[in-house]
């Protein structure tokens, strides 16, 4: 269609360009910023080992050498012992001290200055420096993100959790990947857990016994700790567990509230010192032959560090450096101790030499699995840590070789052989994971790096075969093997370590590092797109110019600056995490402000501001809705009931309330249908199409009502009706919606009648809105009709209050825009408010997962994902954007000017451009803010989800605008 400003393509082209530039920008930025990793649902099993190249040797070796101790050989225990590696310890005590900095544990002599919080955990230092000790302090390096949940996941799966672990969990934080706890339970180990309840979120039904305490209240320093203390010492005397996990939270909370350099922190550390003393005393007293803790291993560790302000989450040295203290209750043979790295040694406070090892937290899961003799978690990419493995080395001499006449040197050789075998299994398991991962994941790993690690692996493997053929064939004579550096086992260990290190490096580069260049390029693309937007708007102004009576370039500054200011304020508010949390209220504040500005303008023109006042009342309703939605987020969904109970004095079970909540939405649905009828009967053209539209919509509404009726338990309904209402009705609603959509698109392209553009646009937009609205309504649930009603009335008041100012604004208030931007901004803010009003918020648990299953019982990632997307963006993106033409059409229908009619498409284009510009501006600021805050404590909890929602929202907006422009022009 030829329009005043040229062909329709020249109007549509900018939308396409903007869509493409935005897609490119988001793609680049996302590749740099959001690290993704696919979760594999494979698990390791004891029997898998037969597939490994190490299996035959190790099992034959075990058959020949392994003699079970006579006093403890129940059958299942015997079975356990044959799994993967030889168990080195029987019981394990893991004490997690949340946010344990390295300098809390290591003696102050390791650091330049002595700080008040150092040397408080003296018991660990003394144990580590004691002569011939089997205890050791490690500097443990965590991988970012250093938040407790991600760290626990990393520690137990042996992987590198990223922000988006693509998996099938669909919202629940429970770990679906193979992990240490799962393996423990599968292999008959009884796990006892006490402390932080995050463990229970991650492992809902793994623990034999658990004593969880809420970790939510950061200000509470003692509840969790006291709970753990109450259970820890008594449990140490019990036999009903194999692995004990005690998670203390006090230090983390003290750091968050008071900082590291505070009296509370020192108090906490001193408290821990005395508890650890008691624990060690109990363990030692029971460590004699036949005692409860004869072969127990103690680990005291932090999950991550913290800065001196108590923050953590990022990747700075203070945050990733935590410590790990490991102690075996029996001393390893002196020769094996030489394996321990002694490069970091300083005298401790008593002048004794204390050495500190380096430990990667990545290695935790596999090392513990190797110690306990259970299969390594499938997705673990760590390496069995030689030093911790050496600490438990005593067990090999007695049981492993079964000979007592070994020379000291052969202790070391036997250990090396064992360790090499463990590494062989370890490497095979990691290789298996990497192969499967690169074959199945969404975003794989770089090919050249994969080739490199494969090469290293085959090298190590040939090495292993050589060793087996040359050095190992004379079975049962390990003491012949040299323990020099050139010994084949040492070579093997080195080769495997090489392989495992490069895998870890590859994984880290793929899963933990931001790509600054890509992020920068993405951000620049975004800025370029803003410039394109402004240019497009400017070009349109020039096109419109001849049709304007008088163009006052400067115009009224206030009316031009204030809307821009509102958008700028909203965009800038994303720089603060609190403002992102309160985004709904802030958007409503700005919406109300825009309303007040309009009110003021209307009063200034001495008109009775009824529409503006109604709009303000409406925004007050939205405001209360958002507040209720926010409190739902923090507390339970019963808020509405308590709210109504307080206000009206009605009880939760009150039949009146139930009737109201069930009936009210259905009544509103009828109101909507009547409104729709009013609208549609006012249309001048296309009578048949009109009837089809109306018939389809009414059918959908009836089906929605049936669906809700079938869900309520007001009246007894037959099972058949219940079934059709529950699943059949929604499916038909989706089908009708889709049918109407196809019909409207077809009729738009097949129709060649010449009607006035405004009338035509009204019909078309009505068709689109009516084909989408039933689906959106049913997905939103019972709040749907009210939300849609609010949107319609809000839109009505915006347009109506604008109408009066139209003629005037074309004359007086123009600056850079042909169209007064205030209504468009109000429209956009209204859409944002409705997003929050309908119970969404910008985190992944803010998605309304229930909506994905309206009409379907079974999960299908595409189908359910689509429904969830429609629910999330329905009332905040789809409906507002598709109904934008109403801004113009209602306006122009009443306009007396003929020139305005010819300009319809120019006006519409401009409105679309302004709307898109508002969304793009806020998203750009979100991107800038995420870039600035990428090391912030809340980056993964708050900023990144916000970015994802905004980025997807922007692309949805662009795509909708583009398609709408294709459809309408």
């Amino acid at each position: 269609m030829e329009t005043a400003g040229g062909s329709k393509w020249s109007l549509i082209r900018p939308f396409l360009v903007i869509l493409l530039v935005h897609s490119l920008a988001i793609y680049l930025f996302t590749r740099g910023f959001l690290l993704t990793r696919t979760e594999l649902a494979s698990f390791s099993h004891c029997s898998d080992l037969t597939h490994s190249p190490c299996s035959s040797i190790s099992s034959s070796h075990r058959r020949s050498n392994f003699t079970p101790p006579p006093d403890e050989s129940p059958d299942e225990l015997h079975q356990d012992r044959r799994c993967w590696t030889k168990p080195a310890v029987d019981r394990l005590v893991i004490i997690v001290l949340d946010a344990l900095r390295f300098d809390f544990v290591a003696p102050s002599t390791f650091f330049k200055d002595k700080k008040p919080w150092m040397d408080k955990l003296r018991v660990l230092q003394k144990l580590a420096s004691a002569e011939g000790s089997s205890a050791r302090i490690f500097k443990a390096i965590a991988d970012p993100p250093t938040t407790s949940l991600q760290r626990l996941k990393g520690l137990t799966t042996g992987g590198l959790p990223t922000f988006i672990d693509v998996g099938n969990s669909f919202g629940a934080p429970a770990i679906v990947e193979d992990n240490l706890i799962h393996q423990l339970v599968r292999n008959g180990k009884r796990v006892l857990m006490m402390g932080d309840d995050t463990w229970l979120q991650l492992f809902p039904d793994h623990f034999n016994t658990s004593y969880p305490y809420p970790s939510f209240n950061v200000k509470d320093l003692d509840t969790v700790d006291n709970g753990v203390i109450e259970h820890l010492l008594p449990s140490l005397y019990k036999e009903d567990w194999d692995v004990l996990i005690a998670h203390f939270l006090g230090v983390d909370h003290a750091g968050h509230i008071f900082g590291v350099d505070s009296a509370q922190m020192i108090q906490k550390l001193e408290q821990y010192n005395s508890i650890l003393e008691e624990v060690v005393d109990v363990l030692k007293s029971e460590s004699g032959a036949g005692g409860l803790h004869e072969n127990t291993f103690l680990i005291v560790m932090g999950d991550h560090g913290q800065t001196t302000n108590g923050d953590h989450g990022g990747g700075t040295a203070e945050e990733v450096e935590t410590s790990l203290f490991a102690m075996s209750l029996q001393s390893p043979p002196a020769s094996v101790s030489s394996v321990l790295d002694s490069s970091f040694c300083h005298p401790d406070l008593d002048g004794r030499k204390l050495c500190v090892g380096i430990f990667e937290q990545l290695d935790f899961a596999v090392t513990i699995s190797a110690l306990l003799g259970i299969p390594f978690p499938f997705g673990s990419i760590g390496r069995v840590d030689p030093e911790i493995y050496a600490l438990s080395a005593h067990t090999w001499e007695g049981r492993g070789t079964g000979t007592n006449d070994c020379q000291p040197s052969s202790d070391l050789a036997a250990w090396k052989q064992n360790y090499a075998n463990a590494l062989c299994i370890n490497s095979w398991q990691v290789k298996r994971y990497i192969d499967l991962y690169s074959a199945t994941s969404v975003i794989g790993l770089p090919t050249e790096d994969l080739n490199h690690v494969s090469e290293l692996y085959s090298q190590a493997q040939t090495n292993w075969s050589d060793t087996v053929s040359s050095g190992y064939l004379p079975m049962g004579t390990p003491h012949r093997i040299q323990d020099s550096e050139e010994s084949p086992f040492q070579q093997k260990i080195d080769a495997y370590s090489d392989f495992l290190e490069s895998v870890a490096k590859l994984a880290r580069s793929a899963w933990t590092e931001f790509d600054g260049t890509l992020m920068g390029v993405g951000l620049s693309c975004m800025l370029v797109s803003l410039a394109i937007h402004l240019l497009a708007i400017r070009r349109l102004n020039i096109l419109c110019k001849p049709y304007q009576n008088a163009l006052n370039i400067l115009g009224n500054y206030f009316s031009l600056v204030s809307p821009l200011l509102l958008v700028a304020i909203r965009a800038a508010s994303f720089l603060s995490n609190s403002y992102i949390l309160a985004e709904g209220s802030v958007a409503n504040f700005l919406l109300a402000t825009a309303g007040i500005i309009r009110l003021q303008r209307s009063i200034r023109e001495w008109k009775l501001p009824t529409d503006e006042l109604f709009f303000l009342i409406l925004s007050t309703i939205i405001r209360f809705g958002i507040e209720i939605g926010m409190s739902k987020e923090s507390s339970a969904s019963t808020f509405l009931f308590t709210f109504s109970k307080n206000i009206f004095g009605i009880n939760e079970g009150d039949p009146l309330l139930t009737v109201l909540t069930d009936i009210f939405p259905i009544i509103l649905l009828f109101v909507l249908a009547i409104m729709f009828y009013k609208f549609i009967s006012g249309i001048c053209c296309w009578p048949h199409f009109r009837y089809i539209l109306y018939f389809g919509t009414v059918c959908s509404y009836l089906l929605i009502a049936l669906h809700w009726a079938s869900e309520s338990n007001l009246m007894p309904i037959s099972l058949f009706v219940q079934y059709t209402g529950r699943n059949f009705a929604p499916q038909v609603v989706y089908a009708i919606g889709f049918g109407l959509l196809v019909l409207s698109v077809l009729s738009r392209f097949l129709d060649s009648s010449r009607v006035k553009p405004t009338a035509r646009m009204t019909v078309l937009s009505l068709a689109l809105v009516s084909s989408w609205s039933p689906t959106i309504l049913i997905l939103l649930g019972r709040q749907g009709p009210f939300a849609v009603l609010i949107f319609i009335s809000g839109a009505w008041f915006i347009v109506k209050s604008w109408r009066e100012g139209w003629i005037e604004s074309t004359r007086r208030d123009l600056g850079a825009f042909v169209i007064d931007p205030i209504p468009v901004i109000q429209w956009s803010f209204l859409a944002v408010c409705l997003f929050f009003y309908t119970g969404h918020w910008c985190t992944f648990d803010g998605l309304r997962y229930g909506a994905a299953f309206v009409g379907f019982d079974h999960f299908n990632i595409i189908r359910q994902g689509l429904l969830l997307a429609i629910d999330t963006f329905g009332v905040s993106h789809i409906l507002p954007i598709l109904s934008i033409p109403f801004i113009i059409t209602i306006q122009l229908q009443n306009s007396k000017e003929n020139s305005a009619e010819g300009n319809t498409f120019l006006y519409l284009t401009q409105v679309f451009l302004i709307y898109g510009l508002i969304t793009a501006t806020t998203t750009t600021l979100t991107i800038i803010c995420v870039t600035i805050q990428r090391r912030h404590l809340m980056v993964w909890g708050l900023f990144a989800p916000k970015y994802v929602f905004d980025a997807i929202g922007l692309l949805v907006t662009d795509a909708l605008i583009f398609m709408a422009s294709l459809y309408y022009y």
Partner: protein
Amino acid sequence: MGYGEITASKALALHFLCGVGLAAGYGIARLGCDVSLVADPARTLRLLLVVEGPVIIGIYGWVRRDREHCSYSKAVARGLLGLPIGALLNAFGAIVLGAPVGLKYWLSTIYWSSLMSLFTFVPAVCVFGTSRTDWQRILAYSKPNEGVDCVISLPAQGAVIGAWLGAWPMPLDWERPWQEWPICVTYGAIAGYSVGMFSSAVFVHLLGRKVHVKDD
């Protein structure tokens, strides 16, 4: 000098007295009754209201329009009547913008909106009464050309914009007591009001000079 005009010194004195009233109210609250806005916003706001109310009504009644038909006492009565109406308008605005409602807050909201009414609505009612032309002029106000308009509308606009800006720390997670409604909004309003008074005094001074130049 035209009808209803106001001399610079008079405007200055007027604003000075208003400012002194505000300071005195705060001083009495702080020293006399030992309450502060942060500790007990409702009581402090009430004290401010009690002290500042008479000052503003009294002073603006004194510069009332239409002196022939309107006695001083009538202007004062108008001001007293305008106080609750303005409070209602301000409370409506605040609630639309997101002021919390609830038993805990309603007292402070009432006192706060009355104080805002004193800053915005009461002076205009005292001076203009129900004169339609005057109201229309002050609402459609774009350029200050009369001293009284300045004296009324600049501090009012300052107070409203200050209160609006004063809301910005409220969502922040600093957990300071003054982030509560209506403490920081009150601070913002008072600050904005003071700026408005200052600029109004300056404006009236400049206006007076312009008139002088014209007269010469």
